[in-house]
């Protein structure tokens, strides 16, 4: 096969060939068995590349990365280089200074420190915690500063005696699902660890399946979610797009590997309306390998409707 021919096939299969060239190329494929075979071989190769184990981006890993990043940014904002942050703080230097005093002065300094603490507590009750009445913590800053949320990490520095607490705040975001921010959050949320949340997210995305990114997310849910109810919901949402090649391929994939027979039945039902000659080989393999009688029967009927042989030769 010539280099130009290989490039044409790559462009064609990746959907990068201009429409005008595409029609001519498809006509050429139709007229040449050799070319059709070359395209099929390359298609198999590209599909095989999907067998690579995809990288898992877990919520835990992302949370850790975000934490590390935001901590670093916090340090930058405070003008504290990472190395300096690990060095002795003002308290450590103060104690060190006390140790260096002549012994005779040390009791005096200790009394002065006690007095300073007492005075500070009286003069700045809002700054310190648990003095007198309330046991609730209050914080330096504006009284209206609403500081709250789940503590994500606490880091104590023995050298400085300081502590850094990273809080994860809950936020409510309201808006139109077409807003890019909300849309992005919804798409990423189809991977939520909570299956109820995943279902609700799919509901919110229901009217927006025209969007190719949303369809891609739905395909990934249909093929990868461990909850059959969620997979089924994604499949139902993709039903209207079953004629799209990527959706059709995903339905075939679901039919091949979904452990739930109900899902496989739904997939074959949708494929009935989106039959494509390219599926014949896979469907014949399914007839041979499918363990569930009803699913096998449905696939046989689909092949029959396509005027294709049930047997694999």
């Amino acid at each position, binding site marked *: *096969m010539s*280099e130009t021919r*290989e*490039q044409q096939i*790559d*462009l064609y299969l*990746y959907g*990068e060939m201009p429409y005008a060239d595409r029609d001519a190329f498809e006509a050429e494929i139709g007229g040449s068995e050799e070319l059709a075979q*070359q395209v099929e*071989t*390359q298609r*198999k*190769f*590209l*599909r*095989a*590349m999907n*067998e*690579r*184990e*995809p*990288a*898992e*981006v877990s919520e835990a*890993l*992302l949370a*850790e*990365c*975000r934490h*590390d*990043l*935001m901590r*670093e*940014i*916090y340090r*930058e*904002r405070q003008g504290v280089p990472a190395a300096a942050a690990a060095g002795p703080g003002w308290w450590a230097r103060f104690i060190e200074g006390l140790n260096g005093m002549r012994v005779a002065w040390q009791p005096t300094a200790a009394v002065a420190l006690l007095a300073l603490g007492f005075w500070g507590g009286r003069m700045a009750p809002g700054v310190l915690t648990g003095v007198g009445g309330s046991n609730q913590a209050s914080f330096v800053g504006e009284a209206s500063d609403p500081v709250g949320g789940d503590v994500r990490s606490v880091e104590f520095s023995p050298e400085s005696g300081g502590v850094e607490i990273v809080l994860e705040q809950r936020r409510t975001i309201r*808006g139109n699902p*077409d*807003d*890019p*921010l909300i*849309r*992005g*959050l919804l*798409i*990423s949320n189809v*991977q939520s660890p909570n299956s109820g949340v995943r279902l609700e997210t799919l509901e919110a995305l229901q009217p927006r399946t025209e*969007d*190719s*990114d949303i369809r*891609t997310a739905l395909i990934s849910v249909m093929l990868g979610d461990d909850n059959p109810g969620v997979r089924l919901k994604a499949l139902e949402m993709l039903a209207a797009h079953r004629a799209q090649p990527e959706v059709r391929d995903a339905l075939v994939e679901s039919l091949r590997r979904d452990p739930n027979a109900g899902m496989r039945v739904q997939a074959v039902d949708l494929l009935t309306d989106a039959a494509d000659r390219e599926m014949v080989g896979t469907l014949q393999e399914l007839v041979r390998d499918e363990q569930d009688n009803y699913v096998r029967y449905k696939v046989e009927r689909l092949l029959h409707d396509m005027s294709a042989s049930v047997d694999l030769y």
Partner: protein
Amino acid sequence: MEAARAESVGLAGAAQDVSNESERALIEAAQGGDPDAFEQLVRLYDRSVMRVTMNVLRSPEDARDAYQEAFLKVYRKLDTFRFQCSFHTWLYRIATNVCLDQLRRKGVRKEHTVDDRDDEFGLNPLQTAADGRPESAPDRVYEGRDLGRRIEGALEELSPKERMVFELRHYEGLRLRAIGEIVGISEEAAKNSLFRATRKLRGALGEAG
């Protein structure tokens, strides 16, 4: 992200500008020093950035380093972002550069230019070697249980740029024009990198073509 991608391939329009308003507001707030706005931007895009870094670098530790380095660069350079391209493209450009640097540091094959492709094709053992393995028959070659590992090995044989282009096209589904913008090359060069990558991969996986 659809909007951002569309813009990155030159389809920006008035309606899209409106739909990008909230992202723009976030970016402007982050440029003004609002850390919450920056964190929201990170949350909006970091999953896809992490996925690319994990796929390209294939090591969670390296991917974490790349994530950190990329977003710190974004934070430090944010005030230079002038909305001349989509934020998505700009962010991906920084992240892919960080990954490319890491790959180069790790000594993954030398970079190739468009000019040296003929020589390279002529000498590339992956492409020309006769494959006598029994599994090299076209229909059986992709069925081995160790296919995933072989794919990994074959991907590692690509130059960093070829690998990045292949990752973004094949696994991320980005258009070649957008990939060109992200990697900092022309669409034609991205196309050539993709061809070289698929050719080498076919050779490495035993497909004579």
